[in-house]
């Protein structure tokens, strides 16, 4: 009941932002749909078109955002955003004219169910926002700063092509550009726009899974089961929103669009006049994936390699197939034990083993039926899992020495991605079971239809009920680093501290790769939001810093740090140490979850 009330409260309080975001996505969807209809004509069902079109719906929005942020030939106003919207609408009218609208194939009810899943998902995902004061965790603070930075560029009528970016090392601005280009962001509802856009992205992510499964198996139910698994089967990828992984989550949609178009290119014999379109769309998709999250391009490469190897595997002699099977299983076991023995990496299996073992077990069983019926896609899915896990150990310096300590993919991203091959396997396996009962029906003397229907209904019902009864739509306590006390503190800082006051915040080392080298530092409490929300510079130190030591005070004085910010997380500074040295630190602001101390022990004081 609370879920419903909280969902409605979020919708009621943010409906205009929600409407703008849905409008922009709808516009992008209809444009992509028109292009797909020009290419694929009547070969896809209505539900397949919906799934495929939604996967590509962010492309026009992304390129429209880049367009508006690249121009600097006119003074921008709030209404300037109507220009790309108008251009997109014109493109839509043109494409609608070009597209040969064919009678829709396939079941209308499947399309309705798919749309229903999408709408219900949006509503349920919005519940998350009812308990989130700001977007969660430390990543979000930086994404928010970048979006504000881009909005500054927009307001000053500058072009992103002519100014230096916030940081030359931060090279994928796709999500930030799209969020900054939302009309609601232009009106300064940046934080709300970022959170709502993120939740809608979560609702979009599972829908494209339908296309490949449905088209491969010709089973609507198999496609829907894959969507259910991708939506609520495991807590990933949606849980990553707790970590503020907005660009990585957004890239999953584009990634699936590229995979869908790649799959379609293999499956369809397109006419020579449409051959070029086979390359343009994936090209645009890969470019968009790179702009949103560079590592997703590597994932596209991994999937492509798995697809090619799977074909070669199946065409090999039997003994090579067996050898490869043992090598693959051996490789997977080796990876599993290597990962389990590594403190940083072992959590990669948490969503699928510790918490999701029931559905992972079910998918593993269904995979046998999947392999019997759809061997290539099943093998490719297995290989994708194998390669994703292997990428945790492959150093990126084989591609570029610039990122020495990093591996090709990082642990959080792999953890987010494993749902995709598993959902595909689940859908394919379900169709395999369906086909088994269908084929035995054809044999004389067999009448397994009721059994088949019963098992199909049981599998769908079980996944549906199990997912919904075990799913948590609310933010995790792990990552809520900002409390209402912190918001008061930020406002207090803005009003009471000098503009150049430097504030010490608690940090810790980032640790997502196998390497022992330093990966950088991140904020561990709300202090990381100070530059964005209180407009003061920060200076970080490990959260276990001992404030009772003279050396600490000397360091703070040397670095001209004026204040110490203590938030309310377990990894905040220990305020008791500051209270024990009143000659060095004076409390100037105190709420139960937030303390601010002025450093008074420096010589100048």
């Amino acid at each position, binding site marked *: 009941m609370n879920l419903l009330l909280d969902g409605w*409260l979020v919708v009621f309080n943010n409906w205009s932002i929600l*409407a*703008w975001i*849905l*409008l922009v996505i*709808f*516009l992008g969807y209809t444009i992509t749909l028109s292009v797909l209809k020009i290419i694929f004509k009547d070969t896809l069902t209505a539900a397949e078109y919906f799934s495929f079109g939604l996967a590509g719906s962010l492309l026009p929005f992304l390129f429209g955002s880049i367009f508006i942020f690249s121009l600097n030939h006119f003074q921008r106003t709030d209404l300037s955003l109507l220009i790309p919207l108008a251009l997109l609408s014109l493109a*839509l*009218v043109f494409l*609608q004219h070009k*597209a040969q609208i064919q*009678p829709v194939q396939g079941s209308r009810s499947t399309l309705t169910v798919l749309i229903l899943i999408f709408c219900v998902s949006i509503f349920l995902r919005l519940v998350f926002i009812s308990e989130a004061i700001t977007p969660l965790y430390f990543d979000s603070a*930086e994404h928010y*700063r*970048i979006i*504000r*930075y881009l909005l500054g560029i927009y307001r000053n009528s500058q072009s992103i092509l002519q100014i230096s970016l*916030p*940081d030359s090392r*931060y090279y994928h601005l796709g999500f930030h550009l799209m969020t900054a280009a939302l009309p609601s962001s232009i009106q300064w509802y940046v*934080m709300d726009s970022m959170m709502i856009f993120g939740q809608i992205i979560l609702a979009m992510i599972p829908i494209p899974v339908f296309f490949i499964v449905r088209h491969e198996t010709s089973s609507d139910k198999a496609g829907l089961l894959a969507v259910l698994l991708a939506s609520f089967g495991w*807590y990933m990828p949606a849980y990553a929103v707790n970590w503020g992984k907005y660009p990585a989550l957004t890239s999953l949609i584009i990634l699936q669009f590229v995979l869908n178009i790649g799959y379609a290119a293999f499956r369809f014999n397109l006419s020579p006049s449409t051959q070029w379109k086979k390359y343009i769309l994936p090209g645009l998709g890969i470019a968009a994936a790179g702009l949103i999250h560079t590592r997703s391009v590597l994932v596209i490469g991994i999937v492509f390699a798995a697809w090619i190897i799977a074909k070669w595997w199946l065409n090999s002699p039997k003994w090579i197939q067996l050898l490869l099977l043992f090598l693959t299983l051996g490789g997977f076991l080796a990876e599993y034990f290597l990962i389990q023995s590594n403190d*940083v990496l072992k*959590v990669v299996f*948490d*969503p699928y083993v*510790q*918490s999701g073992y029931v559905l992972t077990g079910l998918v593993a069983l269904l995979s046998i039926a999947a392999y019997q019926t759809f061997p290539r896609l099943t093998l490719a899915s297995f290989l994708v899992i194998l390669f994703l896990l292997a990428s945790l150990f492959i150093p990126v310096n084989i591609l570029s020495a610039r990122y020495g300590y990093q591996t090709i993919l990082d642990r959080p*991203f792999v953890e987010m991605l494993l749902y995709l091959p598993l959902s595909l396997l689940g859908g394919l396996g379900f169709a395999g079971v369906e086909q088994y009962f269908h084929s035995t029906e054809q044999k004389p003397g067999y009448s397994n239809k009721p059994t088949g229907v019963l098992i199909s209904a049981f599998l769908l019902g079980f996944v549906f009920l199990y997912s919904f009864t075990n799913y948590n739509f609310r933010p995790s306590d*792990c990552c809520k680093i900002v409390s*209402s*006390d912190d*918001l*008061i503190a930020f406002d207090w800082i803005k009003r009471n501290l000098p503009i150049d006051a430097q504030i010490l915040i608690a940090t*810790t*080392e*980032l*640790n*997502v790769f196998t390497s022992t080298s330093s990966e950088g*530092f*991140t904020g561990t409490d709300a202090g990381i939001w100070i530059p964005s*929300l209180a407009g003061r*510079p920060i200076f*970080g130190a*490990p959260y*276990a*810093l*001992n404030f009772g030591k003279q*050396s*600490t005070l000397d*360091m703070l004085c040397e*670095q001209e740090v004026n204040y110490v910010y203590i938030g*309310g997380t*377990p990894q905040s500074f220990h305020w008791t140490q500051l209270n024990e040295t009143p000659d060095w630190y004076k*409390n100037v*602001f*105190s709420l*139960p979850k*937030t*303390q601010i101390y002025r450093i008074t022990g420096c010589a100048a004081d």
Partner: protein
Amino acid sequence: MKKNKFTISINIFMGFIVLVTGGCTSLFNRNSESGQTPGQPVIEIAYCNVNSQAELCIASFGTENENKSLVNFITTDPSFPDFDLKITRDGVQSAYECRQVEDFPTSIYCVGEKISLGETIELQVLSRDDEHLIAKGVLNISFLALSTPITDSTTPIETAPQTLRATATQTPLIPTETPTVTVGRTQTTPSVTGTAVDSYPNSSYP
């Protein structure tokens, strides 16, 4: 014919979305202007409760410069009207100046005379426009900016630590895929001897 129908449907749908958006925006703005009116019942003030969020509640009490008190209010209504607070202690009434946190309209705080732990106070929330009573309540100050001491197994740092620095200007300091803050080093080599901590929390699902 089908094509025309489809185009018309799309245009109608988009027009509908724009109309609904526009209509709702004006409605929302009107609501924002109106806020609480004198005819509405007075809200009973209590401490905020996660399970039953009141329209206006108190999240915490605190201190400013050790000689003033802070009262942290939360409202569920972003358009809650501007108000001021009056607190009566031992029969003496004091005024507290309240302000909404910029960009977070559901967070409001008031600053005024110092209140001590354990005191029972009577609160009156009055509309700034016409001073009509919006909310009232009697509360005991059961906690006052004293969070539970945090203990963990980490060893305090003996030498000067590794440090990082970020500016408040429009210069986010972010490398590559995962945002971090640029590291600056002090002269002394750091020796962080604390327990290893994953930057991403152990993602055991709650």
